[in-house]
């Protein structure tokens, strides 16, 4: 055992039977299971844990609760780990942060000598003039400042999420929280009790509530026992509630899991955070909160120093002195900031041990040891006014200074949900002014109940009230305890003693001194929020947990305003830093696969995303992409090809008003569409812009089977449901996209292939003409067949039940083998349809394209009284067009433009190329582009600007490019 370890019963969180090793800065330190990195280091006398953000000053722990950035350390894959609370990790070398050279001798600490030249607001003043110089300075500054280093190649570990449900959530497992949980549970509530420590108890586990120092531990043991026996209290320890959102939505992180907790009511019992004293060199390693020393002693069995001074403004400081004595630390004196001696039994007990008490004195300076890596002693002086001492200091040698000058409520969660903290001048304390919503209640120290019995009584009341707010039948209202019992006398009104030579830190995270805040005020930033943004005070990793209170005192009084009723800057979630890995969790990204998906993979398909689906782009090696696509195109043009079009949206529109409904949703006319025929559908939105397209197959008088685009169908279905909620037509709308799998069998030999698999439908060109729709069987499977022409060849779309899609595919590939069948993908289909001049919604149209611009005027039934978009299209059609979509060709050998390259006329942009492909069938490159209306006549040449600025000329040609009379698809 190292010389700093204390015997049992100290160290309730460590297991002395399990020795482990902490590796820190390349050295091994003995530790026990249950140690944190900080406790293990302090147990070996290593006090310096990191270097400060700006001046690279050596820093040790202040709070033992990571309430400041002093103890942030670097793991190999994770920066800024909180050493105070992080368990000793196995097998990795923990490094300190913010130094060059070694932690002990940091070459960058010379920056501190430059500090007179680095005033607050320095960045704004120095580096932005002349214009443009910031980008040079930025690299240097970023290299010198900053916290840990991000490993861009760090392994992404497994993290997940789970939902939790409770009647009552209790945040904070101290005396008040445990009591609240018990009373809510007694009223029948399902309770979840959340605490960020490994063991329930809060201050009961480390603070001294009676002179003998027994009550805390005894009470904690009793409450834990009752909670364990209650049955309806779920306890989450080592868990942090990081925010409080609408309707009691509480994120709780525990290890690699993020819980999303929904509670009917919430008890906030998060306790209070001890606050620092401001004086010169108040950041030296060895200066810490009294509660930090108590945590080290009781929780980890670590002796925090050998010779201590306690500076206090409340009775808790005397309790700390008793704890230090019990731990074998020599207490060289108590410095009491108050004017009058304390009458508390703790003070009497300290006096009885013969310890000198310096009443109405303050520590005005910390005396550093070598390299400022330790505390050598303190200068104390008599207080003569607010923040002023007599100027006749005398020194007490010590290696530990414990300060107990006040608290601030851990009310961050209250603020997250719209509550507020305000300053109460009588108590010199921030107090909860209002709670968010109507289903929350605060109890214990967060609610300024500092007296233990009052905290318990508040817990009882809060538990009862929370159960009632959760809608449970509860018994008689318990007595409501007096508010803020024991709060008076906890906080010193002004524990700030500026020093002419500075280093009197207000904010340890950002190395901000008293003068920095005063300078910000002097520069005219006299509002608290402006001070924050100008000076960066409270903006560091601890988000003001240790600095907001003193800063508001200094800035509010400095600006000449009243402290009474003043508020702090807004605290926002998260309460503690969170890992993106944990926020991301396991990650759910739905992927839709067609029934033929695995057949595509077996054929060597290169898959591409299409919305949430995966589709084959083409089949075969990526290295032969162009050849593979060309071969697929050739197969369709010359023999037969098969493409999986299962991802198409599919809708059943059924009922007496089915045709009327389509008339309203789409631009064409459907009332007289014959049964057994399909018709193009074009959907426009309320502004007249093209929204989607597909075909409508009339299966019977009251039944249309309608296709939609792969990525558009969900929006189409929603729009249909939305409109019919208003129109109330007698029609049923069903999205059956996944229920049907579909293929397009296309090419001159497609009829021969299909004939082998279909016996109950006459496939003859007259019996089953182009645009015909038939129902029957294909390969023994119930099928809907439609003759389509998207790729410009004889072709059949075959729709079958999803579970039998793979069987259909197999049968077609088998029977097509003798005819040279080839599976083709999206890329070949794009070429094939472009040769036919067919547009793709979303590629050849944009969010503003209305039908006439895209040469789709033929798809509009002008005589209909109404369709969505009609009114807007009528307005647009009456005006001159501003652009037109045309087909164009490029001479062989031209560098091809890319899709989205601009069409220009001089300096003016007139449109863009929307589709382009080299067509083997045509022996030239063809494309679609928007041009000016007067450029739309066939034969017109127009300019296309390539990515490198070169201008090439395209020539407008009529579409379709291929088989202009459509003979091939109508065979």
């Amino acid at each position: 055992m190292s010389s700093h370890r204390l015997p049992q019963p100290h160290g309730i969180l460590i297991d002395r039977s399990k020795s482990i090793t902490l590796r820190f800065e390349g050295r091994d330190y003995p530790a026990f299971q249950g140690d944190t990195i900080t406790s293990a280091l302090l147990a070996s006398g290593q006090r310096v844990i990191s270097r400060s953000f700006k001046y690279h000053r050596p820093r040790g722990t202040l709070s033992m609760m990571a309430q400041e950035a002093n103890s942030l350390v670097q793991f190999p894959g994770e920066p800024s780990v909180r050493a105070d609370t992080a368990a000793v990790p196995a097998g990795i070398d923990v490094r300190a942060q913010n130094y060059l050279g070694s932690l002990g001798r940091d070459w960058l600490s010379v920056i501190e000598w430059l500090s007179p030249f680095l005033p607050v607001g320095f960045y704004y003043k120095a580096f932005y003039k002349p214009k443009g110089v910031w980008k040079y300075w930025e690299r240097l500054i970023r290299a010198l400042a900053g916290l840990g280093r991000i490993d861009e190649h760090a392994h992404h570990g497994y993290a997940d999420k789970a939902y939790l449900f409770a009647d009552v959530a209790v945040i904070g497992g101290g005396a008040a929280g445990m009591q609240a949980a018990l009373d809510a549970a007694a009223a029948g509530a399902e309770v979840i009790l959340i605490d960020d420590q490994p063991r329930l108890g809060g201050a009961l586990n480390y603070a001294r509530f009676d002179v003998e120092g027994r009550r805390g531990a005894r009470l904690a043991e009793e409450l834990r026992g009752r909670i364990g026996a209650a049955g309806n209290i779920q306890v989450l320890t080592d868990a942090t509630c990081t925010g409080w959102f609408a309707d009691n939505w509480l994120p709780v992180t525990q290890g690699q899991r993020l819980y999303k907790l929904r509670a009917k009511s919430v008890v906030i019992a998060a306790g209070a955070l001890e606050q620092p004293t401001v004086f010169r060199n108040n950041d030296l390693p060895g200066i810490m909160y009294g509660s930090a020393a108590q945590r080290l002693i009781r929780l980890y069995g670590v002796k925090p120093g050998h010779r201590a001074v306690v500076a206090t403004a409340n009775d808790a400081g005397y309790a700390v002195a008793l704890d230090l004595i019990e731990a074998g630390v020599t207490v060289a004196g108590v410095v009491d900031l108050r004017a009058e001696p304390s009458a508390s039994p703790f003070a009497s007990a300290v006096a009885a041990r013969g310890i000198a008490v310096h009443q109405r004195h303050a520590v005005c300076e910390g005396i550093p040891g070598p390299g400022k890596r330790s505390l050598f002693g303190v200068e104390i002086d008599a207080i003569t006014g607010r923040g002023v001492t007599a100027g006749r200091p005398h020194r007490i040698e010590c290696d530990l200074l414990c300060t107990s000058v006040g608290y601030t409520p851990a009310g961050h969660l209250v603020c997250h949900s719209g509550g507020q903290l305000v300053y109460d001048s009588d108590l010199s304390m921030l107090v909860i002014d209002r709670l968010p919503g109507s289903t929350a209640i605060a109890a214990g120290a967060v609610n300024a109940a500092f007296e233990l019995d009052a905290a318990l009584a508040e817990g009882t009341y809060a538990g009862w009230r929370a159960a009632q707010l959760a809608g449970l039948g509860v018994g008689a209202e318990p007595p409501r305890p007096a508010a803020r019992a024991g709060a008076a006398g906890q906080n010193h009104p002004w524990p700030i003693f500026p020093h002419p030579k500075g280093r009197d830190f207000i904010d340890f995270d950002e190395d901000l001194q008293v003068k920095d805040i005063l300078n910000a005020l002097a520069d005219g930033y006299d509002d608290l929020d402006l001070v924050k943004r100008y000076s960066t005070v409270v903006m560091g990793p601890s988000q003001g947990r240790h600095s907001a209170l003193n800063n508001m005192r200094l800035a509010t009084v400095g600006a000449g305003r009243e402290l009474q009723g003043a508020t702090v800057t807004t605290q926002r979630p998260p309460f503690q830093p969170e890992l993106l890995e944990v926020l991301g969790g396991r990650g759910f990204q739905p992927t839709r696969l067609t029934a033929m998906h695995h057949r595509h993979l077996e054929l060597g398909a290169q898959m591409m995303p299409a919305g949430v689906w995966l589709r084959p782009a083409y089949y075969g090696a990526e290295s032969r992409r162009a050849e593979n696509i060309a071969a697929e195109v050739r197969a369709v043009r010359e023999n037969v090809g098969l493409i999986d079009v299962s991802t198409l949206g599919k809708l059943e529109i059924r009922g007496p008003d089915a045709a009327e409904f389509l008339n309203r949703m789409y631009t064409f006319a459907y009332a007289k569409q014959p049964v057994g025929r399909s018709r193009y559908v074009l959907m426009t939105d309320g502004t007249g812009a093209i929204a989607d397209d597909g075909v409508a197959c009339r299966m019977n008088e009251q039944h249309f089977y309608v296709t939609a685009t792969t990525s558009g169908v969900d929006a189409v279905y929603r729009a249909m449901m939305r409109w019919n909620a208003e129109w109330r037509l007698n029609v049923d709308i069903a999205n059956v996209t996944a229920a049907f799998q579909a293929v397009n069998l296309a090419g001159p030999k497609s009829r021969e292939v299909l004939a082998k698999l279909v016996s109950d439908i006459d496939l003859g060109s007259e019996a089953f003409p182009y645009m015909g729709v038939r129902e029957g069987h294909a390969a023994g499977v119930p099928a809907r067949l439609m003759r389509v022409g998207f790729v410009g060849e004889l072709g059949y779309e075959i729709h079958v039940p999803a579970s039998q899609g793979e069987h259909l595919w197999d049968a077609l590939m088998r029977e097509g083998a003798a005819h040279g069948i080839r599976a083709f993908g999206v890329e070949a289909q794009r070429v094939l349809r472009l040769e036919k001049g067919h547009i793709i919604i979303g590629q050849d149209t944009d969010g503003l394209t209305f039908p006439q611009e895209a040469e789709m005027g033929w798809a509009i039934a002008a005589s209909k009284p109404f369709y969505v978009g009609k009114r807007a299209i009528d307005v647009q059609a009456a005006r001159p067009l501003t652009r037109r979509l045309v087909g164009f060709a490029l001479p062989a050998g031209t560098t091809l433009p890319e899709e989205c390259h601009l069409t220009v006329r001089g300096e003016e942009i007139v449109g863009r190329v929307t589709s382009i492909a080299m067509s083997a069938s045509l022996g030239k490159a063809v494309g679609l582009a928007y041009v000016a209306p007067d450029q739309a006549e066939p034969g017109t040449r127009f300019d296309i600007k390539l990515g490198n600025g070169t201008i090439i000329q395209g020539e407008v040609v009529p579409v379709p490019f291929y088989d202009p009379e459509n003979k091939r698809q109508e065979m």
Partner: protein
Amino acid sequence: MKIMNCPMNGPRNVSEFVWGGEVREMPDPAASDHEWAEYVFIENNTKGVVREWWMHAPTSYWFIAERNTETDEIVRTYPATELYNSRREFK
């Protein structure tokens, strides 16, 4: 995360819902261009309680919510049939 009460599915996380815009009466298609443009393009952006279309995504169920845009409080939700209970005709 807020809770919204779906008239068909009960209280759910608001992430299950899709906002569908303010409830506004479609003018007669014979209305002036100006009036139609107002309907298509202009949201009233009212401060206070507004009536909005909302859809429960897992069931594609559209309903009406009255929501206070100032406080984000959802005052009431109810089936669209309360407002639209007869067939709309276009002549």
